[in-house]
């Protein structure tokens, strides 16, 4: 039985909401602004980023969080390539993170309970 396609589709759907939560929590915890590559490396486990699938999916989400006012961003020139865009959680972002954490915990508990039967 080939379940590969279904696994990938499910992972994509799961990622839709969780990536934003994970990114916000990384930036909420950090005491300095981070740029996309740094965040991707922090999330990497054994060469993979389980939550997002591919790391390229992180960048559009960062941009959305920024346009929603949850992140601040500024550009700094870098010697290695194009100017880097640094992100930092705003006060609103930190407040939202607390709410999202709560929502995540209740969802997780509910799903776990249901799976346990």
């Amino acid at each position, binding site marked *: 039985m080939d379940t590969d396609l279904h696994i990938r589709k499910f992972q994509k759907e799961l990622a839709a909401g969780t990536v934003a939560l994970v990114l916000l929590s990384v930036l909420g915890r950090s005491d300095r602004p981070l*740029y996309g590559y740094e965040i991707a490396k922090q999330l990497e486990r054994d060469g993979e980023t389980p939550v997002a699938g591919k*790391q*390229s999916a992180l960048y*559009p989400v960062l941009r959305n969080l920024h346009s929603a006012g949850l992140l601040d961003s500024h550009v700094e020139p870098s010697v290695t390539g*194009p100017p880097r865009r640094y992100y930092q959680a705003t006060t609103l972002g930190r407040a939202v993170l607390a709410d999202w954490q709560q929502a995540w915990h209740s969802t997780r508990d509910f799903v776990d309970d249901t799976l346990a039967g």
Partner: protein
Amino acid sequence: MNAPIPQTIAQYLQQVRVALAGADRAVVQDALYDAEEHLRAELAANPGVSEADMLRRIATTYGSPEEVADIYRDTEVTVSRALRSPLPTPRSTAAGRFFGVAADPRTYGALFYMLLALATGMFFFTWSVTGVALSVGLSILIIGVPFVVLFISTIRVLSLVEGRIVEALLGVRMPRRPAYVQRGVPLLTRISHMFSDPRTWSTLLYFVLMLPLGVLYFSLAVTGLSLSLGLIFAPVASIFVDGMNSGVFLDGERVVPAGVAMPFALAVGIAVLFLTLHLARAVGQLHGRIAHHLLVKSAAGGIDPQPAPTPEPAPIPAT
């Protein structure tokens, strides 16, 4: 996965561009910018690793060019659906369609853009004309060349600024990142690219056009608004200011009394107001198309590294 495994960052970006063919040009520009930032950082973080090896590994972390293209295509659909204010449901009746324009958020963005266009148009026009004139004038001197390069760079930055204004007010998707410039090539090549890039010249054309367009938009908006509001409030003024002694006068004789003229003025005023709103929405759509056409580089255009001549099939490390 028919494309050869990219050997250089430029080839990788080219493959992303090819895979995104047909997508919104602004999405392509953002995707290339993000990818380049990530790949350059990865390369800098692993100094011992060759570009080709790094790119082979990147396929499993950042994603292959095809996967990156899919991700940006998907995200764009989701995001634009989530961010765009819902369009009002189209009304079925003719009256509903005529008055429904007032409930459409795009109308007010466009109206504001029309008013703003006079100021931005004057600025862009002055900047461009001054820059071109000084560039030509100074070209006989040694400082002419750096001046021209500096001026053209400001044009590219201003293009991004105008793009942000157009996207915010007119709702047309514009680039959020500067145009991708090829790195790792000599400075002179990059500068000459700036001049051979048709977008530089179309942006200049757009900026020069912005003065007449801005004057036109501003006049239309101000005329429409002041005429309609004047007519709408004429009855109020007539009642409270001169006690219905107004009306339509011809040679000092009142030919139409206020009681007859004022309801008529009110009706015409409301009609003109809604016609102005319709006009604003139409101008907004038209101008959005002009801006997108002249300010955003075509996905396939520009001077880009040619897709690599198919290299030896490189062994793919098992992952």
